[in-house]
């Protein structure tokens, strides 16, 4: 189980700092230095230094508050290098590092879709099976790219820049990346469900709260179901961070990103269509995270192949035993 005090501390810190205005402003500025510094001072920036369950619990809290900082990347960098990383750091997902090459300790090429590439001090990428770390100050240029949530996913270009560290990757980046996204999404889904349920109780039309309408209630129930399903799945995958559990959790999370955002927006009506209201902090992040580190189809295919290989007799044992069976 995760450390309650530690997680609750993160929740209070982010509840205080991730106000609607700050999260909104971070979109224009690319990130929130205020939030990052607050997290760093309290020790949360070194997520890899915590136990895995604790780190994921903190990420779920970050998802609940749409924290506009590279917290998941900090965890991934530490896990890849097998230790802590000083300062702010990002990680290039495997799909974005194909253009990089390493020659005599010198890195060249473009790293694509780098989370907060413009703001972090260092970047970690997988090149030729090695996890390499390099200072972003050595980049020849940074092209600004932005995901659906307004979070930086920049192109960072190097031309023979010396890496600080190169060592065999200490974890499977695809799996751990998916695990961080599942944790973030679990938090965002829970927060989005609570926000929507609360709104439906307050918003009055036709003389009564819209939550009194059965057609609206159906959306609220489906939101609660998605949030519960993904919340439990992500927590389980964190306790058993093995391929089957991670695949299933991210598959469910990415699928829920489609169904839950649709329900939440429908309940909110036009109110949810503006950036003046908080809903978009969650719905847009869910859409963005849905496709990072494998969407629902990617992981469904992975699971499908795995269970066919295991055979029909092992299908139910796989559902109950997960990675212990296949």
């Amino acid at each position, binding site marked *: 189980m995760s450390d309650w005090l530690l997680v609750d501390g993160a929740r209070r810190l982010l509840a205080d700092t991730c106000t609607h205005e700050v999260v909104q402003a971070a979109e224009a500025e690319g990130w929130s230095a205020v939030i990052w510094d607050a997290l760093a001072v309290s020790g949360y920036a070194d997520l890899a230094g915590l136990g895995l369950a604790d780190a994921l619990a903190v990420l779920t809290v970050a998802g609940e508050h749409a924290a506009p900082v590279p917290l998941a990347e900090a965890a991934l960098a530490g896990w890849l290098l097998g230790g802590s990383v000083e300062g702010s750091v990002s990680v290039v997902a495997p799909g974005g590092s194909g253009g990089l090459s390493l020659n005599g300790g010198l890195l060249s090429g473009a790293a694509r879709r780098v989370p907060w590439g413009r703001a972090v001090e260092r970047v970690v990428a997988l090149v030729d099976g090695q996890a390499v770390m390099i200072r972003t100050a050595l980049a020849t240029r940074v092209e600004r790219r932005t995901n659906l949530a307004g979070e930086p996913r920049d192109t960072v270009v190097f031309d023979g820049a010396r890496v600080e560290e190169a060592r065999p990757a200490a974890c499977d980046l695809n799996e751990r990346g998916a695990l961080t996204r599942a944790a973030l999404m679990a938090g965002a889904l829970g927060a989005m469900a609570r926000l929507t349920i609360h709104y439906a109780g307050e918003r009055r039309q036709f003389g009564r709260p819209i939550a009194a309408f059965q057609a609206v209630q159906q959306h609220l129930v489906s939101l609660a179901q998605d949030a519960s399903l993904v919340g439990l799945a992500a927590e389980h995958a964190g306790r058993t961070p093995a391929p089957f559990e991670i695949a299933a959790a991210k598959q469910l999370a990415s699928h829920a990103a489609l169904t839950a955002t649709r329900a939440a927006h429908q309940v909110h009506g036009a109110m949810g269509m503006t950036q003046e209201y908080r809903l978009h902090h969650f719905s847009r992040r869910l859409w963005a995270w849905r496709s990072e580190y494998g969407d629902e189809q990617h992981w469904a*295919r992975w699971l*499908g192949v795995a269970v*066919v290989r295991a055979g029909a007799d092992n299908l*139910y044992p796989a559902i109950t035993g997960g990675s212990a069976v296949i």
Partner: protein
Amino acid sequence: MLFEVTDLEEGELALQREVREFLAVELPRGTFQPGLGMGAPRDRVFSAKLASRGWIGMALPGRHGGHDRGAVERFVVNEELLRWGAPVGHHWVADRQTGPVINRFGTEEQKQRFLPAICRGELSFAIGMSEPEAGSDLAAVRTRAARVDGGWTVTGTKVWTSGAHASDWFIVLCRTGDDEDRHEGLSQLIVDLRSEGLTIRPIPFLDGHSEFNEVSLEEVFVPDELVLGAVGQGWAQNTSELAYERGGPERWLSTYLLVEELVRERGDALGDRGLLLLGDAVARWWGLRRLSLSVARTIDRGEAPAVQSALVKEMGTRFEQDLLAALQELVDVEPVMDADSLFERLLVAAVLTGPSFTIRGGTNEILRSVAAKRLGAL
């Protein structure tokens, strides 16, 4: 969080292995026609074998023939039986809900009379709730019990009563008072299905089977000692009985065997669409099972997770139907009732019974209303 994370403990995993070994020996694949979850056939001999292993009435007290085990252990046994397609029909209702409600509301005499026989897998119960004018709106029941010397005479009609023709008893929800309030004046009576004045007329189900019945009661005498719980408390008792019905693995495993057979018969030729369908289903089973297990663990802590159960049942049964539709779209099959392929026979059975998944035990629309009223706790 509505649901707390939980895992099977060592003893529970040992029980799972034990049930799997039992099924492989007692009911080897290919030697029986598997059923679709709780819609599986009745088999008194099989129920007796389960009972002799202590797997019926597991959560009932030992002094009444039960086994003093919990909801999680019952979950472990039942998910294995259901996914195997085992013939659980004879004891299903008695084990899941009649046993627990008699244990909760019954007199000592009723417990001694019924519970040991339920736990031996002998007694089979049906459910006497629905009436022609009382489907989802159960408080509209009209079946009436009139006070007579030493008991009650019951008159009315129960309908869509699964298994009444093959069961021994059913619990009848009926009016015992003149109260204007729909929820007051209701009581539950334990009624012998072979009573004088009671007529059972089979109603053919969509798939041609005659599991459904109409049960007419014409001044059927029920002695005082067969009133379940307090006279006039039928509504509250019945609501709690419904809670036992919800949230278990039978709400998401009805179409499981189709997929297992699909993998067995056509695993090499699924194609990308088939693999996607399979992987999506596996993830959802894994997630739903976690929620369902969490409900069972909560029950073992002495809580009544009504909202959680409603959420799981609604989501699980919807998934059962979504999966069936996806399978129908995936395979190019002109279904026939007596196909050689087990997958195709199961597909036919699922198509013809599938609409009931989201109706039986409370329609999904009612479940959503039940859950929505209490979502503030999220």
